[in-house]
């Protein structure tokens, strides 16, 4: 198949996800401006950081006057899921040049990863097909994210207050969270991360998200290790 046809397949595969991405981008843009972020910075963050959850967490912290180092640390902790994606998709990118790999990595998102991995695992594709499929899917999402956040930034001031539109943000995270809670260890990670962030609100420098999320990961890993003790029953039996 031609590169164009491969890319179009990727575009088609990612399209349903745009229904979730576009409202998310609009809410980010509206919220960023509403919380006092200059419009150019809000839009630039979409292009430079290009990671929605991290961008929203950063806007929240900047609005509260958190130190720059804590905001950056929070962005990094929220994005700690990316090395996991990178590791699992890396074998499929092996045939590409470093420059291509770096470009594809920049375009990586939760949705592009999910769509591409399914395609790669279900079919034995040529490297060229894999590359253009990923570009088609990931670049489509990139364009949708930039356009929706810019639209949000531009209309931000005109959105009537009192609609509680900011509530769409935790709702979006909720839809990503639910499928990630499968089994006791991930439930522990969620409870420690979620409750811990609230309990730690009074910690200095707004570090509660970073601390609570890392504690949640540590607690879940500890539980998993205990459960996988060779003297115990195999994991995954639900007991």
């Amino acid at each position, binding site marked *: 198949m031609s590169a164009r046809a491969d890319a179009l397949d990727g575009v088609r595969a990612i399209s349903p996800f745009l*229904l979730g991405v576009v*409202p998310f981008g609009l809410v980010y843009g509206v919220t960023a401006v509403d919380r*006092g*972020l200059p419009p150019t*910075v809000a839009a*630039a*963050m979409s292009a430079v950081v*290009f990671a929605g*959850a991290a961008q929203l*967490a*950063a806007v929240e912290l*900047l609005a509260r*006057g958190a130190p*720059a180092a804590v905001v*950056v640390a929070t962005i*990094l902790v929220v*994005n*700690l899921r*990316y*090395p*996991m*994606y*990178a590791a699992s998709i*890396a*074998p499929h*990118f*092996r045939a590409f040049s*470093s420059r291509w*790999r*770096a470009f594809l*990595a*920049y375009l990586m998102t939760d949705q592009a990863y999910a769509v591409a991995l399914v395609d790669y695992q279900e079919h034995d594709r040529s490297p060229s097909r894999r590359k253009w499929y990923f570009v088609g899917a990931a670049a489509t999402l990139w364009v949708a994210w930039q356009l929706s956040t810019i639209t949000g930034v531009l209309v931000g001031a005109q959105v009537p207050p009192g609609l*509680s539109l900011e*509530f*769409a943000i*935790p*709702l979006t995270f*909720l*839809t990503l*969270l*639910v*499928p*990630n809670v499968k089994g006791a*260890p*991930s439930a522990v*990670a969620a409870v420690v*991360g*979620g409750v811990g*962030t*609230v309990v730690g*609100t*009074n910690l200095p420098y707004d570090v509660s*998200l970073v601390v609570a*999320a*890392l504690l*949640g*990961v540590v607690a*879940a*890993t500890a539980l*998993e290790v205990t459960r996988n003790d060779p003297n115990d029953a195999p994991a995954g039996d639900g007991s």
Partner: protein
Amino acid sequence: MTAGDATLWLVVLAGGLGTFALKASFVVVVGRVDEIPPGLERALEFVPAAVLAALVVPAVVVVEPTATVLPAVAYSPKLPAAALAALVAWKTENVPATITVGMLALWTLEAL
């Protein structure tokens, strides 16, 4: 918003470079590292659950910093609205459906 423009741009730049490093990590070095260390992989598996919950929970209750050790936490109608939305998310895994149900639930609870 108390940060100056220079600080904001610094945050965008550092956050962007750091995010790219995380995204590129195993993709770019794959020539040398074939597999992520199993211990690290196991820990990273729990990152989405911990981080996403850390983003959701503070946004569905009223949290006020205090001078004591623990903050003041109060009820918000966002809590039951989010619980209902979580049920929809669990059943459908559909983002627009979850947002729609959650927003409608919140508006209804606020209007009561």
